[in-house]
């Protein structure tokens, strides 16, 4: 059997295959750089404001795409990170590294505890359990007034400092630079870690029974990934406080979770940069593109979702592959003459 011929042919070009996962973060970094350089303060503030959700979407993509557990529950570690940061800031701890560390820890612990329950389930049950998690997070945030300030939330959270002695991070451009750096760094770190785990997680998603029969502690893998994603979500929560300096329970509730999950689908479930860009698209449509038509943001957002489903099967992440496949088809038809249309029914 000419198996070798069969396997190499017809696949994505080798260049896109190897370079693809890194092209996206590179491009994203470039785009963000361009935004930072531009003089438009509104642009700076808008993009900075979107990045926490982008990082949350990355965390959702890790759980949904890589662990195979569709989740709305990552808002819980997000909330843990955000409120930890807020409380630290109110308590006088204003150093960004301390915030990030504490938030990551809080997120990981929260996700670890939730994961212990969630990873025993699969599919729709996970989705609904995590929906319960999202709702409970928002409700708890609303009721626990001492921490969250009630349903109206907290405002006027002290600004953070990158290092002692530096000016506070309040101006739009530095905030954007800082947030973008953290977002890209966290995404890249997650991608690197996941690359090492790719085989294990694919196996777990594809055929859990076989994986267990080969000695793989499947639930432990999933718990580890869930916890790690929780740390990312915690960092995203810290960024939320750093960019907004306010928070309401609704920001850590179902609607945020749903937006993050939809961003992940737009990005192409397993692609972390895709998820982040998906989040930027979603928020961009809702907050920027729709602004001239007040009251019709849902209409535009809905249309964007519909268009994304039809035009981007497989999400943003699949675009390079589809392009290279199209190129392949063109080449193919150039080489072969089209097959004869007539069949000879004798």
């Amino acid at each position, binding site marked *: 059997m000419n198996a070798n011929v069969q396997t190499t042919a017809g696949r994505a070009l080798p260049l896109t295959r190897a370079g693809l996962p890194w092209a996206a973060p590179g491009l994203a970094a470039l785009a963000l750089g361009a935004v930072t350089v531009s003089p438009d303060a509104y642009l700076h503030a808008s993009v900075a404001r979107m990045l926490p959700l982008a990082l949350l979407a990355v965390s959702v993509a890790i759980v949904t795409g890589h662990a195979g557990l569709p989740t709305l529950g990552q808002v819980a570690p997000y909330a843990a990170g955000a409120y930890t940061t807020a409380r630290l800031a109110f308590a006088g701890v204003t150093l960004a590294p301390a915030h990030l560390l504490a938030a990551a820890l809080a997120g990981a612990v929260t996700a670890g505890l939730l994961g212990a329950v969630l990873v025993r389930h699969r599919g729709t049950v996970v989705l609904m359990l995590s929906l319960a998690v999202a709702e409970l997070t928002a409700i708890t945030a609303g009721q626990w007034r001492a921490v969250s300030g009630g349903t109206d939330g907290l405002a006027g959270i002290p600004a953070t400092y990158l290092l002692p002695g530096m000016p506070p991070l309040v101006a739009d451009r530095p905030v954007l630079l800082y947030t973008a750096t953290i977002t890209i760094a966290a995404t890249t770190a997650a991608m690197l870690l996941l690359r090492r785990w790719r085989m294990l997680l694919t196996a777990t998603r594809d055929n859990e029974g076989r994986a267990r029969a080969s000695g793989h502690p499947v639930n432990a893998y999933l718990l580890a990934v869930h916890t790690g994603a929780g740390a990312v979500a915690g960092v995203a929560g810290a960024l939320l406080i750093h960019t907004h300096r306010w928070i309401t329970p609704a*920001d850590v509730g179902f609607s945020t979770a749903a937006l993050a999950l939809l961003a992940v689908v737009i990005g192409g479930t397993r692609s972390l940069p895709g998820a982040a860009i998906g989040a930027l698209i979603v928020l961009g449509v809702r907050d920027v593109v729709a602004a001239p038509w007040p009251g019709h943001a849902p209409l535009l957002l809905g249309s964007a979702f519909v268009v994304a489903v039809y035009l981007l099967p497989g999400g943003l992440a699949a675009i390079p592959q589809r392009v290279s496949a199209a190129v392949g088809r063109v080449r193919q038809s150039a080489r072969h003459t089209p097959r004869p249309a007539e069949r000879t029914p004798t």
Partner: protein
Amino acid sequence: TSSAPRADTIRIGLLVSLTGTYTTVGQDMQRGFRLYLDTHDKKLGGRTVDLVVADEGDGPATAVPAAQKLLERDRVVAVTGLVGGATVDKVQTLTTQRRIPLLGANARPAFGPVAGKPRDLAYTWHTSYNSDEPGIAIAEHVKAQVGDGAVYAIGPNYQGGWDELRGFTDTFTKLGGRLANPDGKTLFTPFPATENFLPYLNKAAESEPKAVYTFYAGGASVAFVKQYRQSDLRSVPLYAAGFLTEGPVLSAQGAAATGIRNVLNYSPTLANAANQDFVAAWSAAGHPGQPTTYAMASYDAAAVLDRALSAVDGQVTGEKLNAAIGQVGRVVSPRGDWQFHPREHRPVQRWYLREVKPDGPVLSNMVVQDLTTLPAN
């Protein structure tokens, strides 16, 4: 729209909910503001107004980006509207930072400290009221009505509900009133999830209250009123913050709402001339039903801006406009004349006791009596 406005044109941002739970309120506020413009030649203080409307949505998550766009892209000289308390709380820091007056026309939250310092309210004004004022205003009347009897307090479980109910219960108990609630604490129902109030109401009936006090708004108020009349409480007098029966919800409630006594700073049946003009203009503009307190407060916000802008010379800036707002003095309003409280930057105004009665073919909140003027200086 980012080009600089001409000298005789000024740009004003109207941030209201056009999507989500509070769309009705937001729409009314927009109608109110535009009504003032339309009846005043589309000019405020002699300047043509370029009104930029932005959607507040369901809360700060959508409202803050919209506010930021108003401030940074459209460079408005004032922001008005704002339906939700949480939104005001967050947007206020943005406007203050940029020295642009924020002239809220609906919710006014408690404004917690910023970074440990008390909130700077120099640039923050409201043409509405504090959320606890309706309850404060009606407490004495209810006490007089129930005598020694107990009152059952029930409301939605969120900041607005907490404030509204606290205003009533604190004042009521200070006056020696007794709550019928088992532990003396107001019953708060999950918000916005509750649509079936019957269990709560039937439960409340067990404590045999002399009256019930409540605050709900929007869709929940329709369900509440309808189910109140189906519950074991049906013949117990119902007192409420006026939002329960304000605006289009009243027609959805239908006959079930008749007889509800409620408190508000406005009624379309008020007999003053400003109100008669206002109501007439409202109908003339083709808007359905009668104007609401939301529309009225937004109408007044336009009126305040009108007076303030006429006092500003030359190029309008946020600072100049803010200073002028502080000087507007008496505002002639459909609710009766009022003026800003010098420190609190909100109206010192009269509150009315209203009752839902048939007014010709439709139901209306008819004024029964004046209650009190708040805030007391």
